[in-house]
Protein backbone atom coordinates (compact mmCIF):
# COMPACT_ATOMS: atom_id res chain seq x y z
CA UNK A 1 0.00 0.00 0.00
CA UNK A 2 1.17 3.45 -0.86
CA UNK A 3 1.86 5.34 2.41
CA UNK A 4 0.33 8.45 0.87
CA UNK A 5 -2.90 6.50 0.18
CA UNK A 6 -3.03 5.29 3.77
CA UNK A 7 -2.64 8.84 5.08
CA UNK A 8 -5.25 10.17 2.70
CA UNK A 9 -7.67 7.35 3.53
CA UNK A 10 -7.28 7.91 7.28
CA UNK A 11 -7.82 11.65 6.81
CA UNK A 12 -11.06 11.02 4.95
CA UNK A 13 -12.27 8.55 7.57
CA UNK A 14 -11.51 10.88 10.46
CA UNK A 15 -13.42 13.64 8.67
CA UNK A 16 -16.45 11.31 8.31
CA UNK A 17 -16.17 11.27 4.50
CA UNK A 18 -17.03 8.11 2.58
CA UNK A 19 -14.04 6.72 0.68
CA UNK A 20 -13.02 3.58 -1.18
CA UNK A 21 -9.51 2.20 -1.26
CA UNK A 22 -9.17 0.68 -4.71
CA UNK A 23 -6.41 -1.93 -5.02
CA UNK A 24 -5.34 -3.58 -8.27
CA UNK A 25 -4.70 -7.13 -7.04
CA UNK A 26 -2.51 -7.81 -10.08
CA UNK A 27 0.19 -5.22 -9.46
CA UNK A 28 -0.69 -4.03 -5.95
CA UNK A 29 -1.21 -0.39 -6.93
CA UNK A 30 -3.87 1.47 -5.02
CA UNK A 31 -5.75 4.75 -4.96
CA UNK A 32 -8.32 6.48 -2.78
CA UNK A 33 -11.66 7.40 -4.35
CA UNK A 34 -13.78 9.83 -2.39
CA UNK A 35 -17.54 9.79 -2.66
CA UNK A 36 -18.51 12.12 -5.50
CA UNK A 37 -15.09 11.96 -7.21
CA UNK A 38 -15.48 11.44 -10.95
CA UNK A 39 -14.42 7.93 -11.99
CA UNK A 40 -13.91 7.15 -15.65
CA UNK A 41 -14.44 3.86 -17.44
CA UNK A 42 -15.89 0.53 -16.44
CA UNK A 43 -15.00 0.86 -12.74
CA UNK A 44 -17.51 3.67 -12.31
CA UNK A 45 -20.61 1.49 -11.85
CA UNK A 46 -18.83 -0.83 -9.44
CA UNK A 47 -17.64 2.15 -7.37
CA UNK A 48 -21.06 3.78 -7.25
CA UNK A 49 -22.66 0.49 -6.27
CA UNK A 50 -20.07 -0.06 -3.54
CA UNK A 51 -20.72 3.40 -2.05
CA UNK A 52 -24.45 2.66 -1.93
CA UNK A 53 -24.19 -0.86 -0.50
CA UNK A 54 -21.22 -0.21 1.76
CA UNK A 55 -20.00 -3.72 0.94
CA UNK A 56 -16.32 -4.30 0.22
CA UNK A 57 -15.62 -6.79 -2.57
CA UNK A 58 -13.46 -7.98 -5.43
CA UNK A 59 -14.57 -7.00 -8.92
CA UNK A 60 -13.26 -8.39 -12.21
CA UNK A 61 -13.02 -5.81 -14.96
CA UNK A 62 -11.51 -6.48 -18.37
CA UNK A 63 -9.48 -9.39 -17.04
CA UNK A 64 -8.12 -7.49 -14.02
CA UNK A 65 -9.07 -8.00 -10.37
CA UNK A 66 -9.67 -5.02 -8.14
CA UNK A 67 -10.48 -4.96 -4.46
CA UNK A 68 -12.85 -2.19 -3.41
CA UNK A 69 -12.58 -1.57 0.31
CA UNK A 70 -15.48 0.69 1.25
CA UNK A 71 -15.14 2.94 4.27
CA UNK A 72 -18.46 4.56 5.16
CA UNK A 73 -18.77 6.75 8.24
CA UNK A 74 -20.89 5.02 10.88
CA UNK A 75 -24.44 6.41 10.52
CA UNK A 76 -25.60 8.78 13.23
CA UNK A 77 -29.15 9.42 14.32
CA UNK A 78 -29.71 12.79 15.96
CA UNK A 79 -33.08 13.17 17.63
CA UNK A 80 -34.28 16.65 18.51
CA UNK A 81 -36.51 16.19 21.51
CA UNK A 82 -36.16 14.12 24.70
CA UNK A 83 -39.74 12.88 24.50
CA UNK A 84 -41.51 9.55 25.04
CA UNK A 85 -40.88 8.47 21.41
CA UNK A 86 -37.13 9.13 21.86
CA UNK A 87 -37.05 6.92 24.94
CA UNK A 88 -38.38 4.02 22.85
CA UNK A 89 -36.21 4.91 19.87
CA UNK A 90 -32.89 4.92 21.76
CA UNK A 91 -32.60 1.14 22.35
CA UNK A 92 -33.91 0.38 18.85
CA UNK A 93 -31.31 2.62 17.22
CA UNK A 94 -28.60 0.95 19.25
CA UNK A 95 -29.75 -2.51 18.17
CA UNK A 96 -29.81 -1.43 14.53
CA UNK A 97 -26.21 -0.20 14.79
CA UNK A 98 -26.91 3.53 14.79
CA UNK A 99 -24.95 5.96 16.88
CA UNK A 100 -27.81 7.98 18.43
CA UNK A 101 -27.82 11.22 20.33
CA UNK A 102 -30.63 13.34 21.72
CA UNK A 103 -30.70 17.13 21.91
CA UNK A 104 -33.29 19.01 23.93
CA UNK A 105 -32.77 22.31 25.79
CA UNK A 106 -35.72 21.59 28.09
CA UNK A 107 -33.95 20.24 31.14
CA UNK A 108 -37.17 18.80 32.54
CA UNK A 109 -37.29 16.43 29.56
CA UNK A 110 -33.59 15.81 29.01
CA UNK A 111 -32.74 13.96 32.22
CA UNK A 112 -30.31 11.06 32.58
CA UNK A 113 -32.99 9.14 34.53
CA UNK A 114 -35.23 9.10 31.48
CA UNK A 115 -32.34 8.38 29.08
CA UNK A 116 -29.80 6.16 30.82
CA UNK A 117 -28.14 4.56 27.78
CA UNK A 118 -27.93 7.26 25.15
CA UNK A 119 -25.84 10.38 24.63
CA UNK A 120 -28.00 13.24 25.81
CA UNK A 121 -27.37 16.97 25.38
CA UNK A 122 -29.57 19.29 27.43
CA UNK A 123 -28.78 22.30 25.29
CA UNK A 124 -30.04 24.27 22.30
CA UNK A 125 -29.45 22.62 18.93
CA UNK A 126 -27.34 25.55 17.67
CA UNK A 127 -24.87 24.91 20.50
CA UNK A 128 -24.78 21.15 19.94
CA UNK A 129 -24.31 21.62 16.20
CA UNK A 130 -21.29 23.79 16.68
CA UNK A 131 -19.46 20.91 18.33
CA UNK A 132 -20.95 18.13 16.24
CA UNK A 133 -22.20 19.39 12.85
CA UNK A 134 -24.52 17.28 10.71
CA UNK A 135 -23.18 15.51 7.62
CA UNK A 136 -24.47 13.26 4.85
CA UNK A 137 -24.21 10.21 7.13
CA UNK A 138 -26.45 11.78 9.74
CA UNK A 139 -30.19 11.22 10.10
CA UNK A 140 -32.15 13.94 11.89
CA UNK A 141 -35.55 13.39 13.47
CA UNK A 142 -37.22 16.44 15.00
CA UNK A 143 -39.92 15.38 17.43
CA UNK A 144 -40.48 18.26 19.89
CA UNK A 145 -43.44 19.89 18.03
CA UNK A 146 -41.87 23.21 19.03
CA UNK A 147 -40.67 25.39 16.12
CA UNK A 148 -38.28 27.27 18.43
CA UNK A 149 -36.39 23.99 18.95
CA UNK A 150 -37.09 22.02 15.74
CA UNK A 151 -36.75 24.59 12.93
CA UNK A 152 -33.05 25.40 13.16
CA UNK A 153 -31.81 21.78 13.15
CA UNK A 154 -34.22 20.98 10.30
CA UNK A 155 -32.77 23.84 8.25
CA UNK A 156 -29.20 22.76 9.02
CA UNK A 157 -29.99 19.12 8.24
CA UNK A 158 -31.38 20.02 4.82
CA UNK A 159 -28.40 22.22 3.99
CA UNK A 160 -25.93 19.53 5.14
CA UNK A 161 -27.53 16.93 2.84
CA UNK A 162 -28.40 14.57 5.71
CA UNK A 163 -29.54 11.22 4.32
CA UNK A 164 -32.75 11.44 6.35
CA UNK A 165 -34.69 14.40 7.71
CA UNK A 166 -37.96 13.70 9.49
CA UNK A 167 -40.32 15.95 11.43
CA UNK A 168 -43.15 15.03 13.72
CA UNK A 169 -46.47 16.79 13.31
CA UNK A 170 -49.76 16.64 11.49
CA UNK A 171 -50.13 17.74 7.88
CA UNK A 172 -51.46 21.06 9.12
CA UNK A 173 -48.49 21.58 11.43
CA UNK A 174 -46.15 20.63 8.60
CA UNK A 175 -47.79 23.09 6.17
CA UNK A 176 -46.96 25.91 8.58
CA UNK A 177 -43.44 24.55 8.98
CA UNK A 178 -42.98 24.55 5.18
CA UNK A 179 -43.88 28.26 5.07
CA UNK A 180 -41.34 29.06 7.80
CA UNK A 181 -38.58 27.05 6.10
CA UNK A 182 -39.28 28.85 2.80
CA UNK A 183 -38.65 32.20 4.46
CA UNK A 184 -35.25 30.81 5.56
CA UNK A 185 -34.34 30.43 1.87
CA UNK A 186 -34.73 26.67 1.45
CA UNK A 187 -35.99 25.52 -1.94
CA UNK A 188 -38.93 23.25 -2.73
CA UNK A 189 -36.76 20.19 -3.36
CA UNK A 190 -35.02 20.54 -0.03
CA UNK A 191 -38.26 21.08 1.85
CA UNK A 192 -39.94 18.27 -0.11
CA UNK A 193 -37.30 15.83 1.09
CA UNK A 194 -38.52 16.12 4.71
CA UNK A 195 -40.30 12.99 5.88
CA UNK A 196 -43.53 14.40 7.30
CA UNK A 197 -45.65 13.08 8.82
CA UNK A 198 -42.67 11.22 10.26
CA UNK A 199 -42.30 7.45 10.05
CA UNK A 200 -43.36 4.63 7.74
CA UNK A 201 -47.11 4.22 7.41
CA UNK A 202 -47.64 1.16 9.60
CA UNK A 203 -50.57 2.57 11.53
CA UNK A 204 -48.35 3.32 14.52
CA UNK A 205 -50.30 4.56 17.54
CA UNK A 206 -48.16 4.28 20.68
CA UNK A 207 -44.82 6.09 21.18
CA UNK A 208 -42.97 2.78 20.80
CA UNK A 209 -44.79 2.00 17.55
CA UNK A 210 -43.99 5.45 16.22
CA UNK A 211 -40.35 4.81 17.15
CA UNK A 212 -40.43 1.59 15.09
CA UNK A 213 -41.89 3.49 12.14
CA UNK A 214 -39.17 6.16 12.40
CA UNK A 215 -36.36 3.61 12.70
CA UNK A 216 -37.71 1.73 9.66
CA UNK A 217 -37.88 4.96 7.66
CA UNK A 218 -34.31 5.90 8.63
CA UNK A 219 -33.00 2.48 7.58
CA UNK A 220 -34.90 2.66 4.31
CA UNK A 221 -33.47 6.11 3.56
CA UNK A 222 -29.93 4.99 4.39
CA UNK A 223 -30.12 1.97 2.12
CA UNK A 224 -31.66 3.92 -0.75
CA UNK A 225 -29.79 7.17 -0.37
CA UNK A 226 -28.60 8.67 -3.60
CA UNK A 227 -25.16 10.17 -3.61
CA UNK A 228 -26.05 12.37 -6.56
CA UNK A 229 -29.10 13.85 -4.86
CA UNK A 230 -27.14 14.60 -1.72
CA UNK A 231 -24.38 16.32 -3.67
CA UNK A 232 -26.88 18.37 -5.67
CA UNK A 233 -28.70 19.52 -2.54
CA UNK A 234 -25.39 20.43 -0.96
CA UNK A 235 -24.44 22.58 -3.96
CA UNK A 236 -27.71 24.49 -4.01
CA UNK A 237 -27.49 25.10 -0.26
Amino acid at each position, binding site marked *: *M*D*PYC*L*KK*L*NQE*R*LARHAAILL*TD*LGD*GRDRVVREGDPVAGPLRDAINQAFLS*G*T*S*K*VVEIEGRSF*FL*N*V*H*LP*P*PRLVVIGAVHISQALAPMAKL*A*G*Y*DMEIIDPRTAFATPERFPDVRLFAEWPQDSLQARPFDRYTAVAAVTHDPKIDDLPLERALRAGCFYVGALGSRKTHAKRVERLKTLGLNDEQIGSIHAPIGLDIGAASPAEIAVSIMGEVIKAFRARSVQTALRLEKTA
Partner: protein
Amino acid sequence: MISHNAPEQILDPLLVAEGWMAEGRDVAIATVVETWGSAPRPAGSHLVIDEQGNFEGSVSGGCVEGSVIAEAMEVIKQGQPRMLEFGVADETAWQVGLSCGGRIKVYVERLG
Protein backbone atom coordinates in the same frame (compact mmCIF):
# COMPACT_ATOMS: atom_id res chain seq x y z
CA MET B 1 -24.54 -4.85 7.62
CA ILE B 2 -23.49 -1.41 8.65
CA SER B 3 -19.76 -1.05 8.90
CA HIS B 4 -18.55 0.07 12.26
CA ASN B 5 -14.94 0.88 11.76
CA ALA B 6 -15.29 4.19 13.56
CA PRO B 7 -11.89 5.78 13.05
CA GLU B 8 -11.86 7.37 16.51
CA GLN B 9 -11.45 3.93 17.99
CA ILE B 10 -8.01 3.64 19.49
CA LEU B 11 -7.33 0.19 18.06
CA ASP B 12 -8.31 1.04 14.50
CA PRO B 13 -5.78 -0.98 12.46
CA LEU B 14 -5.29 1.59 9.71
CA LEU B 15 -4.63 4.39 12.21
CA VAL B 16 -2.24 2.08 14.07
CA ALA B 17 -0.43 1.34 10.78
CA GLU B 18 -0.03 5.04 10.07
CA GLY B 19 1.30 5.61 13.58
CA TRP B 20 3.82 2.79 13.24
CA MET B 21 4.94 4.13 9.87
CA ALA B 22 5.49 7.57 11.44
CA GLU B 23 7.69 5.88 14.08
CA GLY B 24 9.83 4.41 11.30
CA ARG B 25 8.66 0.84 11.72
CA ASP B 26 8.22 -1.50 8.73
CA VAL B 27 4.60 -2.43 8.34
CA ALA B 28 2.50 -4.96 6.43
CA ILE B 29 -1.26 -4.71 5.97
CA ALA B 30 -3.37 -7.86 5.64
CA THR B 31 -6.91 -7.44 4.28
CA VAL B 32 -9.75 -9.94 3.96
CA VAL B 33 -10.76 -9.59 0.29
CA GLU B 34 -13.16 -12.50 -0.17
CA THR B 35 -15.17 -14.76 2.10
CA TRP B 36 -17.31 -17.85 1.53
CA GLY B 37 -19.59 -19.48 4.04
CA SER B 38 -19.52 -18.46 7.67
CA ALA B 39 -16.33 -16.45 7.78
CA PRO B 40 -15.89 -14.57 11.07
CA ARG B 41 -14.72 -11.22 9.67
CA PRO B 42 -16.18 -9.55 6.56
CA ALA B 43 -14.29 -8.46 3.45
CA GLY B 44 -12.41 -5.26 4.18
CA SER B 45 -11.24 -6.28 7.67
CA HIS B 46 -7.60 -5.56 8.45
CA LEU B 47 -4.74 -7.00 10.44
CA VAL B 48 -1.61 -4.85 10.54
CA ILE B 49 1.78 -6.27 11.42
CA ASP B 50 5.22 -4.77 12.02
CA GLU B 51 8.64 -6.31 11.35
CA GLN B 52 8.84 -7.52 14.98
CA GLY B 53 5.57 -9.42 14.68
CA ASN B 54 3.52 -6.92 16.69
CA PHE B 55 -0.01 -6.80 15.34
CA GLU B 56 -3.36 -5.07 15.67
CA GLY B 57 -6.79 -5.92 14.22
CA SER B 58 -8.09 -9.24 12.93
CA VAL B 59 -8.88 -11.18 9.77
CA SER B 60 -10.62 -14.10 11.51
CA GLY B 61 -11.70 -15.02 14.99
CA GLY B 62 -8.10 -15.71 15.90
CA CYS B 63 -7.84 -18.97 13.89
CA VAL B 64 -5.42 -17.93 11.17
CA GLU B 65 -3.78 -14.77 12.52
CA GLY B 66 -0.58 -16.61 13.47
CA SER B 67 -0.09 -17.82 9.95
CA VAL B 68 -0.90 -14.41 8.45
CA ILE B 69 1.63 -12.74 10.75
CA ALA B 70 4.38 -15.16 9.67
CA GLU B 71 3.60 -14.51 6.01
CA ALA B 72 3.42 -10.76 6.63
CA MET B 73 6.93 -10.74 8.08
CA GLU B 74 8.15 -12.38 4.86
CA VAL B 75 6.24 -9.80 2.80
CA ILE B 76 7.91 -7.00 4.77
CA LYS B 77 11.34 -8.47 3.90
CA GLN B 78 10.63 -9.24 0.25
CA GLY B 79 8.20 -6.49 -0.74
CA GLN B 80 5.97 -8.60 -3.00
CA PRO B 81 2.29 -8.79 -2.02
CA ARG B 82 0.79 -12.26 -1.45
CA MET B 83 -2.71 -13.69 -1.62
CA LEU B 84 -3.37 -16.25 1.13
CA GLU B 85 -6.31 -18.60 1.25
CA PHE B 86 -7.63 -20.36 4.33
CA GLY B 87 -10.42 -22.90 4.42
CA VAL B 88 -12.01 -25.56 6.53
CA ALA B 89 -9.30 -27.20 8.62
CA ASP B 90 -7.75 -29.78 6.33
CA GLU B 91 -4.20 -31.00 6.87
CA THR B 92 -3.73 -31.97 3.23
CA ALA B 93 -4.21 -28.40 2.09
CA TRP B 94 -3.39 -26.13 5.00
CA GLN B 95 -1.84 -26.39 8.41
CA VAL B 96 -4.30 -23.95 9.86
CA GLY B 97 -7.94 -23.53 9.05
CA LEU B 98 -11.16 -21.91 10.07
CA SER B 99 -13.05 -24.04 12.55
CA CYS B 100 -16.27 -22.28 11.55
CA GLY B 101 -16.21 -24.01 8.16
CA GLY B 102 -15.79 -20.82 6.17
CA ARG B 103 -13.16 -19.90 3.64
CA ILE B 104 -11.32 -16.59 3.31
CA LYS B 105 -8.81 -14.94 1.04
CA VAL B 106 -6.37 -12.53 2.65
CA TYR B 107 -4.25 -10.08 0.70
CA VAL B 108 -0.98 -9.19 2.41
CA GLU B 109 1.03 -6.20 1.25
CA ARG B 110 3.88 -4.09 2.52
CA LEU B 111 3.21 -0.49 3.41
CA GLY B 112 5.48 1.57 1.16
